């Protein structure tokens, strides 16, 4: 019996075991490879997606838990060719080097700004503590999230 998932506003029917981790379903079944495998242990944040708006480690989430909920991946942020303001801010600040952690970091930031449009630096740091950037681009990631929040304030 295939499971039905809502991903980036579209329906997907996937024939996988209920305990299969969401990460592999997104990447291998649906072909959304912007969500990355980094550790499979919920430690690095590269696999972060939004489930009903909450930043979630898809490498640890059984796919069954996401059924009936809105899943947002990095591919779902851009609307009508317009980058999300967090994507725009990362690009402008050049807040990435190899880029492998970028999807996860952006989604963690989006989740934060959706809940707290005017975050303090402490809130930003706490929200991104679970996202490892081994290239060490942390100062610019912080700058980018601050800038995206400022855009949001308008």
């Amino acid at each position, binding site marked *: 019996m295939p499971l039905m998932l809502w991903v980036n506003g579209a329906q997907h029917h996937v024939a996988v075991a209920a305990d299969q981790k969401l990460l592999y379903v997104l990447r291998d079944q649906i072909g959304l490879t912007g*969500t990355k495998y980094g550790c499979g242990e919920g430690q690095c944040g590269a696999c972060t997606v939004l489930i009903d708006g909450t930043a979630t480690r898809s490498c640890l989430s059984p796919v069954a838990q996401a059924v009936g909920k809105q899943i947002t991946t990095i591919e779902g942020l851009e609307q009508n060719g317009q980058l999300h303001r967090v994507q725009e801010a990362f690009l402008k600040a050049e807040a*990435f080097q190899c880029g492998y952690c970028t999807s996860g970091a952006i989604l963690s930031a989006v989740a934060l700004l959706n809940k707290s449009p005017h975050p303090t630096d402490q809130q930003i740091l706490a929200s991104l503590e679970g*996202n490892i950037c081994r290239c060490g681009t942390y100062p610019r990631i912080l700058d980018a999230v601050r800038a995206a929040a400022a855009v949001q304030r308008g």
Partner: protein
Amino acid sequence: MNDECTRDLILENQEQTATSRLNYSFELQRRDFCKMLGGGLVVFLSAPQVLSQEAGRGPRNTNEDELPQAISAWLHIAQDGTVTVFTGKVEMGQNIRTSLSQLVAEELHVPLGSIQLIMGDTALTPYDMGTFGSRTTPTMGPQLRKVAAAARGKFIDLAAQRWKVERSSLVAEDGKIVDPRSKQSVSYGELTKGQELVKLIADAPALESPAKWKIAGTPVPKVDGRVFVTGGHRYTSDMARPGMLHGKVLRPTAFKVSLKSLESAEAQKTPGATIVHDGNFVGVAAPDLASATKALQLLRAEWNVSRQTSEATLFEDLRKAATGGSESPAEPLYRTGSIEEGLSVANKRLDQTYTVAYIAHVPLEPRAAVGEWKDEKLTVWTGSQRPFGVREELAEAFRMAVENVRVLVPDTGSAYGGKHTGDAALEAARLAKAAGKPVKLVWTREEEFTWAYFRPAGVIDVESGVRDDGTITAWQFDSYNAGQAAIRTPYSVPHQKITFHPADAPLRQGSYRGLAGPANHFAREVHMDELAHLVGMEPLEFRLKNASDPRLRAVLQAAAEKFGWGREKSTATRGFGIAGGTEKGSYVATCVELEIGSSGNVRVARVAEAFECGAVVNPSGLHNQITGAIMMGIGGALFEAIHFDNGRILNPHLADYRVPRFSDMPQIDVEMLDRKDLPPAGAGETPIMALAPAIGNAIFSATGIRLRSLPIVPKGLPGKR
């Protein structure tokens, strides 16, 4: 490239990997090449003569129909004006796709947007030893600049012929040749129309001086930045091929063991699975990752194990295992004066030992490869710093000609010196061969932490003598296993003896960001601090007293100024430290401010780093490399260490192997000294080197506790826990 540089490059390649060798081959004839690219202008640059000879093939008299065997760079300009640059270098986050494009745009006088780079594809790009050793900017940079400048010259020739005017009256700008007097202009693409032009150059036309750069030297954004913020970039691990299977490899229970028996009947029942058992290699390929993982779990293997050493005796073991031992000591790499004499004229002597632990690179994208066989030919996509080296490994493993192996490197999710070998490539190719279908293999994080190689652990003895006025008179440096990079002191000491002692190491080890640079800098710059203390001198003043190299003095002074060095005195809870050095033609100095908590926890609060690598090609990308090196350096300095016992890694998970996170981020102030009068040097490595000793020295300044091992405080300050 001068001889010394070439020798360094060859030496470095030998040190980086025992399996690699120089092998120049060029598979495409000119006719094939033009057919592939369509018409247009192709410019080739012959490799330096010395490298050709190294490969056992002297330079030939080439005409432009037969391509020489040793080509180091080429580019193509199409009829629509598109510029395609071919380089064997690979992009893994260090931003060379952008910085090399800037250099080509600068010399060719075209808009940056008209340039595309084909990188790290053994079928299309010139042979390249690998992307390591901070070599891209100082060697590939000038090579591409030369071909670009030659192409520009060729277009001026063509336009001069077309208009029957003096070439000196024409200017190249924005992808066009313009005659300022007649105001007529013609695009490069138009000039190539209907032609197959090949220009072969052996040496340099005049290059633009960095002082006049308009595109190079500026902070242009990453040329393909957008695909990284949209999830659109396809790393090796994201690839899919028609009919592709997913692979898993059965890992032994410990290092250096052999397979005793394998029971695979249950695993064989997995639908669509292929089980491969070839010597000690056991692996599975299956239609999806879940079934591959399940089949792997059903395999029952027994291994022949034997007792192996533990971390507890690591440093004694390295000394004992140093080849040569005390019977026939290793030859010094460098010697001047006499240590005995230097020590005899000293007022004070110091003899200390420093150690560094094994650490892991932890690239966020694990090793990954996709292998595909077709008509006895093998194609492998893999994240590697050495595509041509991996091609060799594959050709050897499968006993086939290198011409039948193609390795492509998609822009990779970082490496830091950790992706030199073709492990995942070999495994994916072996599985694909057995399955008869393409196979993708992505290592797990645990496999990364266990079966990749590590930054070598090392023991370093320093014996020195100093006069009361602060002049160092003797410097004897013995580095066991850590490596040769940055092993010499940049300070002026009349009596020196510098020796590297290679050892049979207990763990698989290899390159790292800066190789042994961070280890050797740690020993030297902590020792410098100890000497300053011994003679009662201020640490910066002591360094400047012994530093005659103006570039070293400049970075030390610039870092001190940026930091406000000496403005505040250390207290028991706040320490200040400084260190400096040089490697790979660039110079670094780092000042740190630390906070020491009541429980002995140490936090780096502020870092000011001055860095000088000649003319800066892209200040924004360079800034990222410097802050990144500082962040990475914090891990190796404070807490990163691989623990092992009896052939097993004890902490092969990110939960047990801590890497720097946001909470470890200090305030970072970077001072880039842009020396337009000097050729650009690489910048990926040296900025990491002075951080650990600066931290160690800051701890001493606050607490009086001298710590001589990396990581410095894995569990907080000793005696304060």
